[in-house]
Structures are given as C-alpha cells and as structure tokens.
C-alpha cells in the first residue's frame, strides 16, 4: 500500500522540526515502522534515562492509533513487563487528528506523572500505592540500570 501524504508529511516534520527529548526515525525498508527514543522527563525518577520504543503505523492509520511499545525496561505503574503502555489516547480516546509527535509527547508526560489508579502492571501499581518513595527509588534504580547508554 502506498504511503499516504499524511505519513510522508509527519515523517518530514519529525525530522525537520524535532521535539526536544524525543526522536522517531522510520526504518529504510518499512516506512511505517519507527525507532523511537524518549528522554526521561526532568524531576522524575526517569530523569537522565533514554528509553527506546518501537512504533508501528497500521494500514488504516490515522483512523486507528499507532501501535507503540517500550523496548527499554521501565518501572512504571502504567507500563507492563512487555513494554505495553496503558494510555487512553492510544486506545479509546484516539483521534485521527492526533499525530506521532503528539502521542510521543503524551507518553513522555505519562513518565512524568505516573497514574497508579489505572494500572497496567499490577505489582508496580501496588508498590507505588503502598510506598511511593520506595517505588520511586526502584524506578530510579531501573533507569540507572537499563536506560543509561
């Protein structure tokens, strides 16, 4: 299927007008598949870490949301062991007017504001609710261990 003008434009703008702290580069052999990196937001336990993710645009994008998953291990109540992300705009609240850049920004914001009341990783969410300070310390440890280049 030919690449839509929309995907071409988005890819162009991601390269020319990059969002600080976020990168998304398409594969040469599959322009719907992107290598993504997201910098951990400052003043969060993920600060200083660079988190890798993969992003795929399905055939009916933008009518359906992009599929995205973290590749770097991350200790976060809304991200599970497999890197899957629990975020409304990636599922029920997706809108075809959203874009790759806006979604990645939302994910970066999610790192800065974990939401243990709507968990995907149950154990992490529980730890977060029981002892937030300890959970944050663990998240920092994981960042140090997995997300440092």
């Amino acid at each position, binding site marked *: 299927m030919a690449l*839509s*003008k*929309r995907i071409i*434009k*988005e890819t162009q703008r991601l390269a*020319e*007008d*990059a*969002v*600080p702290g976020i990168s998304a580069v398409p594969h040469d052999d599959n322009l719907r598949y992107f290598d993504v990196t997201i910098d951990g937001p400052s003043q969060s336990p993920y600060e200083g870490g660079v988190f890798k993710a993969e992003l795929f645009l399905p055939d*009916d994008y*933008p*009518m359906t949301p992009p599929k995205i998953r973290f590749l770097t291990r991350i200790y976060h109540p809304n991200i599970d062991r497999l890197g899957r992300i629990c975020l409304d705009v990636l599922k029920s*609240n997706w*809108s*075809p*007017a*959203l874009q790759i850049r806006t979604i990645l920004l939302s994910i970066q914001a999610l790192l800065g504001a974990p939401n243990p009341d709507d968990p995907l990783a149950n154990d992490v969410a529980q730890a977060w609710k029981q002892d937030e300070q300890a959970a944050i310390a663990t998240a920092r440890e994981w960042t140090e261990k997995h997300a440092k280049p």
Partner: protein
Amino acid sequence: MKFGHVFKETLRNEGFPPEWVDSAISYSQLKKCINRLTDELAQVGLNPSTLGTLLKQVEDYNASTEQNDDQDRPFEYILAGDDSAGLPREHRKPFHPKLLFYVDEATGEVHSAKLDEDTRSKLQMLAVATGVSQLRVYEEPDQQSIASKDSVDPPSPPGGVNSASGIRKRPGYRTVEIPLTSDTEFFAKLTSQLSGLEALQDKEEKRMHAQIEELGKQVAHLTDPDKRLNKKLIPVWRQIFQIYIESGIFFGTTERDHKAHDADKAAQRFLEFSDKIARQGLVEKFKKPESLQALNSFMHVNREILQGLRFGQINHMAMLKILKKFDKQTALGVKSTFPKQIEFPEFSEHLAKAVCAEVNTQVISHVPLLDDYSCPMCMELKWRPVKLRCGHVFCIRCLIVMQTNKQHKCPLCRELTVVDANSANLDLELADFLKKWFPDEVKAKQKYNELMAGIDQYGEVYKEKCNVM
C-alpha cells in the same frame, strides 16, 4: 584588529546609506573623550592603576570576609540623572556624572567604613604614596562640619558639593567631588547619539511601512485569482512564500529554534532562501516584468531588514566596547550601571519584528497557503470541505471513512458531530474559495475521492479508467 578600525570598515563597506553612517555611534570621538578624561584624572593623581588598586584592596577585603557591601568603597561614581528615568526621553536631562570620594572629616583619610585598622592604614599609605591625599586640595572649606567633627551625630547640613541630590550621607565623612568635564562630555555625546539612532529607526520604520504597503498592493494585483493571466503564477508565488516561511529567516519557527535571529544567522538563512528559489527555477517562471519587479522589491525589503539588523547590532557592539574602554582607562566601573540608565534602541528586536509582521500581513497573506487549508486527518487539501456542527472542517473522504468505521466523535473536539453529518454540512463558500485558489490541488483530490468512492462501491478491483480495449 582594533574594534575602532573594524567598526569604521564595516560602516564603510556594508553599503549602509550615508544618513545611517552619519548617525552611527562615533567611536573615535568618544575614544578621544576618554583620553581627555584620563588626562584630567591623572592631573589630580588618579591614574587608572591607582583607582584600580584602591578598588581591588577593598574588594579583596570584602572577599576575604565574605561580605559585599558597597559602603566600603572608598569612592563612588554616580551617573546622576537617573532619577528622571521615568520621564519621556526628550525631557530627560543629560547625564551629569560625579566622582565622589569619602574622606574622614577628622583625619582626611580615605573612607572605607568597615575595614580593619590594618587595611585602612594600608589604604591610607597607598593613598599618600600615589598622591590621592592631594584630594583635600579640592575640598571646599566648610566651617560647620569642621566644628562638629567630633560628634557622632549625622554631619552638619550639607554645604558645597555635599548638596548634590541622590548622594548617600555617611556620618562623620565628607564627600569630595573631583571636578571633571570630559566625562560629562562623553556621556552627553553618547546619549545624544543614542537618541539620534532611535529617531533614525523610527524614520526607517515609517519608510519601510510605506514600501511594504505598496508591495502588498502589487502582489495582490498579480495574484488576483479572477484574472486569467495570473493563473499560472499563483502557484509560483505560493511556493516562494511557502519556502520563505519555512526558511524562518528572522525568527525561528521550530521547536528547537524559536527565537529572533542575529544578523549573521538571518543573513545565512536569507541566502539559503534565495538559493532555494533559484534552484527550483521559480524565478524563471516569472515572464512578465511586473512579476519580476515585485519579486525584486520583496527581496529588497528583506535585504533592508537585514541591513537594519546588522546596523543595530554593530552600533550596540560599539556602545558596549566604548563603555568597556571607559572602564579600562579610568577604572570607574561604569559599564555595569550604564545600560540600566538608558536602553539601547534595539533595531534587532524592534524594527525587524515590526517589519516582518508587516511583510506577513501585507504581502504573504495575499496568497493563501496550502498548509492553512489542509485536512487535519489526511493532510491534503480539504476537498470537498465539510463543516461539522461543532464548526470543525474536514475533507469529505476522511469523514466518510470515519462514518463507515462508526467513529462518531469530531477528531478535534470529541463532540458527537461526525455521526450526523450529511450533505447539508458541505461548506459551499469554502469550496468556491478552494476552487479559485487551489485549482490543481482540487482536481487531484477530486480524482482521488472519486477513485476511493468507486473502490468503496465495487471493491479493490475498481480502477479509475476503464480498461476495456
């Protein structure tokens, strides 16, 4: 190379209008003023090294005791006239700077209040050794204060030089003003030149305003979509303006670069812009002399903004350099306080901003750009445009797909407005506008929409052309 030389060369070689060159900061004259001032200071025994050592002694002492108190300075250099800073510029008095020493009334020692005995005596020795003690020669005799010199009370009513307004009173000490004239001359010259620069800027802005307005009329005429002759030229103008906006010549437009550019960067961006339109062969597409002339005057306006930017920048630099020189030659420490008293008329900030805004509203806005009329979903031209009940407009194709997918909410506001959109929602007015300004894009999108409608109806095998042959 010395800055004075560089400044002169730049003024001569950058092709500034003679009127601008005349209004530029006269660096060499100001330099001569400084030289005269150093002579004056030397005559009273205050060469820069003496003043510098005096200052340094005190600063070292402050640093060693981790305090920083101006009260300890043995002398003070006041740029009087700052109390009128709130007044409009033309009412402001010219600077009348004062060099004041604080001298102990009893001993004639140079004042440095919180210094210990040791440092003070060192200072005193230094003062004597370098001839600062001659200061008293200029002291006006004041019977009253001598009479009260033993009392701890605040000193006598001010007399003579003490009466100058805005001078802090220090009990037990007398202020001595060193009579200087070249510094007054220096600041008077500098301030009058700055207001000259400001007047020039106002004038230039008005002139360019008229020029841009004229250019705007020209472009409007050349891109009138109702004239058949213009048809081929509208896309060319559109492309040029699109590249112009993307080049972000005077201001960055991306996330990483969103500030005003300095003259060098703007010049470089402008070069890239002209290269790009040349490479794409856009200039050759203008056959008629009026079109070429309009393009030339568009380029000219931009070059003028660039020149104004550079002129402002180099003058600002000249001002900073001359103040630095002033400090170096006299050790009076004026550079840090001066710019607060009078701001430099910012060509870079002001003229460029105002003129760029005008280029945008008066010239570029005549040609609608594709980005402003593209559908937020497919990012192609919104053809045919459908306006939902919530007021948001999309192309018909994207909305048909949404309705088929049972996606009922508006992509922009999430209101349930997609579900009940029908032919009554077609935005006919916008459709006319798009047909007029983007005929080629409308044609292409129309073809695509028909193809997709066929596929919807007959399945993937549908082709836009009949293949029976």
